């Protein structure tokens, strides 16, 4: 049985200007111990897809269709009480910007043990012991459990957030841009740590980022999202060496090549589409240099182009 199976997920937001299709017909899956990278520009639905799995959407958000099988059980029809039980034990989240995800007037140790006490009905002493172990695991001296968040550096806060996410031995851990606010050195440390922990504890992981380079090192497979849809998915090798979708190619082209000649990366002209009024056909066509008439009227089907490499594009070259 797969750890996670997301089938045709549709998550819409109700806004004053109409329905915003943040996630529109998205499918992906994850084996136990596997890591998936979700990548795309801001506002393409990465975070919304991930939050849908934990059913933690803001109140305007609604899952209007699809299926999310987490460990074989669908979370979409689950009542609040079941969700509360499954949160953190089945799926935990490392939040974006640890600076704001910690309560400033509560010690870090207390915040980590909070989940343990809530879920495992552990005594304070047991929870404290486990908290100290978790801190050691993320390379923070365990006697710092009694310190407040403002006494931690940015990288330490992020590591504390990871410790927190591991508190109840979750089967799936979702990292929502866990390194975005950190400098490159700390970023590398955190990613190495995540990678190591994932292997040691054999957890499934979904890493959300807009930095493709990060995914190459830490993930097994990558899903590229654009305007609420997955446009291409495949193994890391598929995506980096055999990208088919023009968007994926341009995304990879946005990163300067360390070994190649000095050149300013191309970038992608234009802006991500307005999801309230997405362009017809393939959502990427207004920015795509290869766009044809067909792209403007018909949404491309996803086709398998070998192995688990799937792409949604009308181009003949892409589909072969």
């Amino acid at each position, binding site marked *: 049985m797969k750890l996670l199976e997301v089938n045709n997920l549709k998550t819409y937001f109700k806004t004053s200007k109409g329905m915003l299709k943040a996630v529109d017909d998205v499918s992906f899956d994850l084996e136990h111990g596997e890591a998936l990278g979700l990548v795309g520009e801001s506002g393409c639905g990465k975070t919304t897809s991930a939050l849908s799995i*934990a059913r*933690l959407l803001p109140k305007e958000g609604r899952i209007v269709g699809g299926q999310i099988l987490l460990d074989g059980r669908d979370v979409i029809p689950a009542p609040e009480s079941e*969700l*509360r*039980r*499954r*949160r*953190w*034990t089945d799926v*935990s*989240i490392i*939040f974006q*910007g640890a600076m*704001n*995800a*910690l*309560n*400033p*007037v*509560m010690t870090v140790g207390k*915040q980590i043990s*909070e*989940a343990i006490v*809530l*879920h495992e009905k552990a005594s304070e002493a047991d929870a404290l012991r486990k908290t100290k172990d978790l801190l050691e695991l993320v390379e923070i001296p365990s*006697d710092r459990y*009694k310190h407040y968040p403002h006494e931690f550096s940015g990288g330490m806060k992020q590591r504390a957030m990871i410790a*927190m996410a591991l*508190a109840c031995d979750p089967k799936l851990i979702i990292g929502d841009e866990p390194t975005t606010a950190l400098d490159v050195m700390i970023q590398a440390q955190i990613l190495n740590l995540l990678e190591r922990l994932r292997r040691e504890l054999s957890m499934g992981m979904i890493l959300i980022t807009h930095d493709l380079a990060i995914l190459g090192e830490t993930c097994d497979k990558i899903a590229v999202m654009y305007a609420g849809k997955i446009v291409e998915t495949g193994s890391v090798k598929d995506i980096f060496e055999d990208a088919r979708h023009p968007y994926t190619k341009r995304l990879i082209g946005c990163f300067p090549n360390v070994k190649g000649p000095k050149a300013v990366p191309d970038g992608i002209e234009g802006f991500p589409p307005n999801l309230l009024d997405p362009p017809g056909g393939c959502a990427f066509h207004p920015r795509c240099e290869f766009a044809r008439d067909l792209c403007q009227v018909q949404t491309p089907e996803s086709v398998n182009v070998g192995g688990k490499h799937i792409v949604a594009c009308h181009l003949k070259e892409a589909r072969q």
Partner: protein
Amino acid sequence: MAGNSVKAKLRKRKIKAFVRQVLANKMALFGTVVLLLFILVAIFGPLLVPFSVLEFGEVEDMLNPPGPGHILGTDDMGRDVLGYLIAGSRISLLVGALATGISMVIGTVIGIVSGYSGKVIDNVLMRITDFFLVIPWLPLMMVLAAILGTSIWNIIVVIGVTSWAGTARVVRSQTLSVRENQFVERTVSIGAGSGHIMLHHILPNVFPLVFANTILIAAAAITSETTLSFLGLGDPAHASWGMMLHYAFETGATSTGAWWYFLPPGLCVVAVVLAFTLMGYAFDEILNPKLKER
């Protein structure tokens, strides 16, 4: 542990810094000193006044001006005004403290629940709060006190139940801002229920506000007690400043020029209320650096 002693030192330094800030703030200093003085007198008063103050005096003792034996003179029953004043301070301060406690608890609970829950619960609770906010509090208190009967405990409950609306409003708006923090979302995501979040995450974050507000409510509670007692709704079995003013007014002390009878309790009320108000504003300023004057 070495880390522990460093931490203890840091904490000590923080407390010292707070005390220094209070001392540097003339308003806070004045308020604190005045209030401490009243509290000390209320506690140790019976030691200072050797005779029972509620004992009626002889006819020649009635309404005597200040003089030897009776520093503040005597009242219409021949009782020592100073003794009565000190006995009264105990009740006035007790009523103030307990009524404030009730008001603070109700206001904080309603404010947090309302702000955190939102939707229907927020609407219902806030309409109730609005009711208590706009209804003229004096007639409401008078009616309640009259229905419940004249006992000091009733007075405390009546004041507490009618004065929480402002706190609830302030706490609610702060809760609205605190609940948008990501740590609240994080706590939801670990599977915590609303009660847990309100108690462990919202309350500690709104507490400074509750604290500053409490001091101001205490001033209002003491004024309310005085008002109710003055209007004859107080507990005749217990001496309080309001009861003194009530008796002084009833016996015509104001028109006969017996200033030593009505002036001391009046001044005491003013001093305590002023002390609370100054402290409230000063603490607000210390805890809320944005308000600091440049």
